[in-house]
Structure formats: structure tokens, C-alpha cells
């Protein structure tokens, strides 16, 4: 009997203790939360200070902009996540990329009649620099890539395709497969490909080669040259314009 009595008390005590632990636990958690939000506030203030202090650098210096973006990425902040909000207000960083995005669309549309909507990223940069002219704000390839990434929200219109040592911007809908990219890569130095080049270097069969080239002709990305000495050449205006400049 007695033992049973003690037993009851012990259970009550245990319950009580558990409740206390729980209370203490939530108290601690609250503390931590408070502390966390305090730390966040401090962090935010510092970031704001930093942003305000380096606003001009961020706007003007592409190198600095890149580092800033990288720093934000490491701590899991995306300054471009929203057009409104703190970043856009503080830095106009958002605006910068949106503006750039619009200009990229303009240039790509204006040149798509000649290149079928495929353009060398460096050529795009040169064109943008000359149209932006007056303000003389330096822009880097990195800026372009970020702006183009942002354009993705508008649909699948804009993609950056790495081709060997350079990048091409595709501004027309229409997927390019691995095969097409491989063909572009092959044409990188000369501006053109031929069936024998594809056979020798990519080791593809007739059908596969034809399918890839035909698609690119159909999309207006490639032009045929019947007057090459041995066999037909397939030229890419996007790659040719660049050879032209060099």
C-alpha cells in the first residue's frame, strides 16, 4: 500500500518535472529566437551599412558586383529575388539587372534576323556597351549571365549555351540538343561545319549528322554554302560575325 502511495507521488513528481522541463525548454528556445533575431538585426544593419557605403561601387564596378553577388550567395541571400523590397530600394541592384535584361531582349530581337536568334555573348556585350553609351557603366559577362537567368521567369525564351571557350545566347524558343551544341562547338573556330568534319571529329553516322544540321537549317541558325571546294559547308552567322571582328 505504502509503496503504491509513493509510486503515485513519484508519477506526479515526474509529470511536474516534465512540465517544468518543457517550460524551461520553450523559455530557452524563446531566448535563442530572440537572440537570433537580434543577431539578424545586427547583420541586417551591417549589410545595409555595407550596401549604402558601397552602393556606387556595386553599380559601377562589375568586378565588385560579382564579388557582392557571390558573398550574398554564400549566405543564402538572393538580392535579385524580388524587384521590390530592401535590395532594390537600397541598391537598385534589382533595377540594374532588370534594365539590363530589357536591353538584352532588345538587342537580341534586333539582330535575330541575321543570326536566327543565336548570338555570341561577347558580341552582345559589345553591342550593349555601345547602345548604353552615355552612362558608360561597365558591364561584364557575369552581369549578362545573371540578367539572362532572370529572364527565365518570362518563359524558356532565353538560354546561355556554353560552346567551347565562349558562350552563345539563344533568344528564340526551340531547344538545342546536345548534338546541336556539339555541332556548334565544332564550328567554333571556322564558323562552319561540313559532313566530313562531323564524321571525322564527332564520329557520327550519316543520319545523325543530317538530322542535327537539318534542324539548324530549319531554325534559321545555319546557312548552306554550295560553292565550297569539296562539299557543302554549313555556316553559322552567330559564329561568323565574331570571326569578322577578330
Amino acid at each position: 500500500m505504502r509503496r503504491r502511495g509513493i509510486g503515485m507521488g513519484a508519477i506526479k513528481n515526474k509529470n511536474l518535472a516534465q512540465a517544468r522541463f518543457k517550460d524551461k525548454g520553450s523559455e530557452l528556445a524563446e531566448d535563442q529566437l530572440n537572440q537570433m533575431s537580434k543577431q539578424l538585426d545586427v547583420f541586417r544593419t551591417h549589410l545595409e551599412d555595407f550596401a549604402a557605403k558601397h552602393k556606387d561601387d556595386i553599380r559601377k564596378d562589375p568586378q565588385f558586383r560579382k564579388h557582392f553577388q557571390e558573398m550574398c550567395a554564400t549566405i543564402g541571400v538572393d538580392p535579385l529575388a524580388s524587384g521590390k523590397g530592401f535590395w532594390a530600394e537600397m541598391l537598385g541592384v534589382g533595377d540594374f539587372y532588370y534594365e539590363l535584361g530589357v536591353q538584352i531582349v532588345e538587342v537580341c530581337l534586333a539582330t535575330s534576323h541575321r543570326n536566327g536568334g543565336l548570338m555570341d555573348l561577347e558580341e552582345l556585350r559589345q553591342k550593349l556597351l555601345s547602345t548604353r553609351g552615355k552612362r558608360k557603366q561597365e558591364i561584364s559577362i557575369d552581369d549578362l549571365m545573371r540578367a539572362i537567368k532572370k529572364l527565365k521567369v518570362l518563359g524558356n525564351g532565353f538560354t546561355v549555351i556554353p560552346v567551347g571557350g565562349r558562350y552563345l545566347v539563344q533568344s528564340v524558343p526551340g531547344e538545342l540538343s546536345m548534338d546541336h551544341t556539339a555541332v556548334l562547338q565544332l564550328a567554333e573556330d571556322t564558323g562552319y561545319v561540313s559532313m566530313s568534319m562531323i564524321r571525322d571529329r564527332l564520329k557520327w553516322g550519316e543520319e545523325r549528322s543530317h538530322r542535327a544540321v537539318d534542324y539548324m537549317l530549319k531554325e534559321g541558325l545555319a546557312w548552306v554554302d554550295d560553292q565550297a571546294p569539296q562539299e557543302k559547308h554549313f555556316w553559322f552567322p552567330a559564329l561568323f560575325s565574331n570571326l569578322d571582328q577578330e
Partner: protein
Amino acid sequence: MAASSFEWPWEYNFPPFFTLQPNLDTREKQLQSWCSLILSYQKHIKSHTLDVVEMQTSSLFYNKSIERKLSLESIYLILDRLEKKGHIEWLDKSKKQCYLMWRTPQEWGNTIYKWAKEAGLVNTVCTFYELTDGDDTAGQEFHGLEPDLLVKALKVLESQGKAEIIEMDESRGVKFF
């Protein structure tokens, strides 16, 4: 001579530009570029006639540096298109020579009419000589315009009721409305 300072468009050095493109969209762009190239080239060498056989070997249709030339068939395709736009009139039935206007008579007519209105010459008679060789028109684009082309341009204006060609003794004139 004059051709050496002509600024060729980028396409001129793009080898496939000299091959008629199988893709219809691409071909459309190609033909358009050829049309404007021919017109600007002719304007540059100040030529009003085009001899197809002769032109086949000229630098317009034959880029020696890349060894590419445009086929006769393609040349005719482009010239037919220019004819539809009113830039060309064939001088013979076999289509060997054509009269080429880098601006259509309609465009010339508009330019002349605009000038006449600005100069306050409405309801006055001007002689053809005054229009193409007079001091008043020096500096105007139609100064020195070929007589044939001038007549064509004024006839367009006449058909629109903006002018009337008047036969005078020894010379001809035009009255603007």
C-alpha cells in the same frame, strides 16, 4: 574606282550569302539583303542601268576574295523582286538590261513635291531644267536627276492630282497643286 570605297555589308563576306538558301525564312532575309545591297551599290556607283551579263562578273555579284559568285538564276530572282517593288524596269523583252532606280518614281515624286510645297511653289510653273539643274534645287537630292526618271516621278504626281506636266515650246515644265 568608286567601288573600292563602297562599304560592303557583312553578308558580302559570308560565303553562303552567294548560295540561294533552301530554308524559306532564311531565303527571305537573304533576298531582302540582296535587294538593298544592289540598290545601295548602284547608288554608290551612280548607275541607272544594269546589264545582267556584265554585272555577273562585277564585284557586286562576284566576291573574288572569298571566291563566291551569285548564280544567274538567283540574280533574276532578286531582280524580279526589285521589279515588283517598282525599282526596276526591263529595257528589253529578253531581260538582259534594266533601268534601275535606287529610289522608285513614287519616292522621287514625294521628295520633289515636298520640296515644292516648302519652297512655296504650289500653283507656279517650274521648268524641268529648273528642277534638275537650277540654282534653287542645288543641294536637293533630286538635283541632277535623269530626265527619264524625273518624268516618271512627275507622272506619278500627276496621277495623284498633285501636279500637271505642261508642254511649252522647246521645253517642258510642271505645275504643282
